[in-house]
């Protein structure tokens, strides 16, 4: 097989979801023996483009050529037959099946009497050996494995098909440094055997380490295709973020100028707040008008602390005071009544209610606080919604549509409006900017800054540390389920400061 020959050529790909254009004339070319990184912020259209390639999403316009031949409307089965395999995140595997079952599902070796389990286990072992997991028993239950091994099992599942095109969508998000290297080595090995690889990751270092070529998307549009050697970090980021980088910089300097110093009693005080197996006892104070960022990796305790403070999870140790009053949060409803509003990281499962209209979603929390017998009149609802339409750049024509038809950014803004309607003194936002377009991101970050100006104590959590640094007056750093320190934000604080702080904290027990 000649290296560098285009295997997949996608041109002018356009995809719409209920009238919203999420991909607009995007091109992507994958060549055999090459690792191609698909770059873009959350909401740029990466997953959609992958969906279009694997045939899970219908394409409105544009063409897909595989080995030069045009593909007519195709489904998942078709793209599999073409040798396109996807490595899903480990969370998409079935925890109650064995390793072999997870690897071979859909491609089982069959004998005369149905599935030949012995052959399946042998085939699984063979693929696992290729991934350096020769000693893993294919009969083990997946749930007993660490996230990293699960991720490699997911790779094995894709390799069973001997694919010519391999798509890796955020394959490293649950891996530690050594495991990442193992995975990258496997990926390079596949490339050298002529497989065309599409690699999606938000870890820029890994991308630069492994990618030969990159395609950058921004807000559903094609920005360009580049050789990895022609770009450096800064180039790539500015291409991904685009012109709004100026606006974000302005926001950062505004926040720095604002320079908050706490005075008076704290709005919220947590002392030794914790929950066994989730978060070690943690002390925290939040003051009026302050934005406090929680920084840490996924699973560091940042989300867990937020959930304890917002009543989503019940603490089994410690105490919590709001405005000087001791509160016992038995439910999120109790937290709301104590003026603590929480938006969780799961927008779709724990945030919006898809079947209800935007209007109903906005009034829901306030209505729940008032009780069922005191409904908000149509007039009161409209007045309430009016307030947020402008502040959050929402479109009035969206208000009476089911919220599931609206874009992720709009959904997130509506969730924010719901919480703000309860007039919280403490607002906890866990990943409020994940998976939404840059415009909505800016709106939300601006709103957070404004809220702090109005005296709300805001907790801001994002895995994008730049956002945390940009917005926060103070940054709480967490690692391994405990708070390892606090930083007062200032001109000298950068993403690297936080990363170094996390890396330098050696007393945290290693994973597993």
């Amino acid at each position, binding site marked *: 097989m000649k290296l560098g020959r285009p295997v997949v050529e996608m041109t002018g790909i356009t995809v719409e979801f209920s009238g919203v254009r999420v991909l607009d004339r995007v091109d992507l070319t994958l060549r055999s023996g090459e690792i191609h990184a698909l770059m873009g912020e959350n909401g740029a259209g990466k997953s959609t483009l992958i969906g279009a390639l694997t045939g899970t999403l219908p394409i409105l316009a544009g063409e897909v050529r595989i080995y030069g031949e045009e593909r007519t409307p195709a489904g998942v089965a078709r793209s599999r037959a073409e040798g396109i395999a996807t490595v899903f995140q480990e969370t998409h595997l079935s925890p109650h099946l064995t390793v072999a079952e997870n690897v071979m599902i859909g491609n089982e070796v069959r004998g005369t009497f149905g599935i030949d389990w012995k052959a399946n286990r042998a085939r699984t072992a063979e693929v696992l050996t290729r991934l350096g997991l020769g000693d893993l028993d294919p009969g083990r239950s997946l749930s007993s494995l660490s996230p990293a091994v699960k991720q490699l099992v997911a790779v094995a599942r894709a390799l069973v098909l001997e694919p010519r095109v391999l798509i890796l969508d955020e394959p490293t998000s649950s891996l530690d440094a050594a495991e990442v290297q193992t995975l990258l080595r496997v990926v390079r090995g596949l490339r050298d055997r002529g497989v065309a690889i599409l690699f999606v990751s938000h870890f820029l270092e890994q991308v630069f380490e492994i990618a030969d070529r990159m395609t950058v998307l921004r807000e559903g549009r094609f920005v360009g295709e580049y050789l990895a050697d022609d770009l450096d970090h800064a180039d790539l980021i500015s291409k991904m973020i685009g012109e709004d980088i100026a606006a974000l910089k302005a926001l950062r300097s505004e926040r720095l100028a604002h320079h908050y110093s706490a005075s008076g009693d704290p709005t919220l005080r947590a002392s030794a707040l914790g929950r066994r197996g989730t978060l070690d006892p943690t002390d925290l104070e939040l003051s009026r008008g302050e934005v406090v960022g929680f920084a840490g990796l996924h699973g560091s305790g940042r989300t867990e602390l937020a959930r304890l403070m917002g009543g*989503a999870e019940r603490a089994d140790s410690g105490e919590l005071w709001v405005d000087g009053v001791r509160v016992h949060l038995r*439910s*999120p*409803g109790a*937290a*709301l*009544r104590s003026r603590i509003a*929480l938006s*969780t990281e799961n927008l779709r*499962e*724990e*945030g*919006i*209610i*898809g*079947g*209800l209209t935007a209007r*109903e979603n906005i*009034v*829901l*929390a306030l*209505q*729940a*606080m*008032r*009780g*069922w*017998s*005191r*409904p*908000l009149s149509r007039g009161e609802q409209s007045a309430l919604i009016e307030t947020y339409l402008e502040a959050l750049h929402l479109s009035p024509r969206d208000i009476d549509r089911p919220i599931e038809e609206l874009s992720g950014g709009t959904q997130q803004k509506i969730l924010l409006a*719901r919480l703000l309607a*309860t007039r919280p003194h403490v607002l906890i936002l866990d990943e409020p900017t994940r998976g939404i377009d840059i415009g909505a991101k800016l709106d939300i970050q601006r709103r957070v800054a404004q809220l702090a100006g109005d005296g709300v104590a805001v907790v801001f959590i994002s895995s994008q540390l730049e956002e945390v640094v940009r917005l926060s007056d103070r940054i709480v750093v967490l690692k391994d389920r405990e708070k390892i320190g606090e930083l007062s934000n200032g001109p000298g604080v950068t993403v690297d400061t936080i990363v170094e702080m996390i890396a330098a904290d050696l007393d945290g027990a290693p994973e597993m």
Partner: protein
Amino acid sequence: MSANARGPVEALKGLVRRQYFWGIVAVALLLLVNLVKDPGYLAVSIGPSGNLAGNVIDILRAAAPVILIAVGMCLVVATGGIDLSVGSVMVVAGAVSMEFLKDAPDTVGSTFTALALVIAVSAALGAVNGVLVSVVGLQPFISTLVIMLAGRGLAKVITGGQNTAATNETFRWIANGYVFGLPVVFLLALLVAVGVGLLVRRSALGLMLEAIGMDAKAARLAGVNRRALLFTVYIFGGVLAGFAGVFATASVMTVDVSRTGYQLELDAILAVVIGGTSLAGGKFNITGAVVGAILIATLDKTVVFLGVSSSATPAFKAIVIVALCLLQSERVRRVFRQRRAAGTARPAEREVVAA
């Protein structure tokens, strides 16, 4: 193009888009079939005391208990649950009232005492469902299945296995009496349906029930008290089933421990589904449930009227309901729409209507 001409047209269009529109069509068709068999079927005569009588009135009377349990079921289904116990609650309510009235004097006071007993017992059974679902966290299907099985047994224990009969004129009047020439049961059922409809839509209950039915987790995070709402809804469903039991036993003043309310939970579920409420929970429609209940009653009467043999009755019912569900399904409708769009004169026609 006058503005007041558009009003009714728009209203009609709105009605056609409702799911229960097809329920209304089905009722009309069934009545038409009966009319063909007997041209005098729809005749309503005025009796000596000013009471209306006729087949249609019989249908309304028969629909009353189904309307009650369908309204209760509608709310339960909205929360994403199901209540299989309503038929059994009906028979328990019947058994309790008959056992009490058997030995009580034939007075208005006894009637009220019997009704109070019915409310207490059916609320208690509903509360058991409510606790199992909301506090213990069992699946509604299992919880209410338990009460469904236990309930009928409980009724037999209460009556000692007998089909207890009693006499009480006031109690009997509830099922057989007339007000404004219409059966009391139907008026009561309608009153309950309208009352519940207003209650859930004018207060925030409707929104909250839909919220927990669509996404229980998200509703919890929004501060909705799911537990209390579920508890209330199951108790309410129980009490409505209790009254349905009173309707069913009072007309003959006998409780039939093996027949009263038997399989009526299925009628209630069907009525709710015909009315356009999805069993997956969420959006619900009380008016639709009432239409569904009336359709079920019409269907039952039609089967008898047409002389379909009693062994074939379930099959006949099934055919009508499957046809209706097909008509309501989005996919089948889309096929129809596409075929219509393929026809030629359609767009022009639509313009005429719009003008």
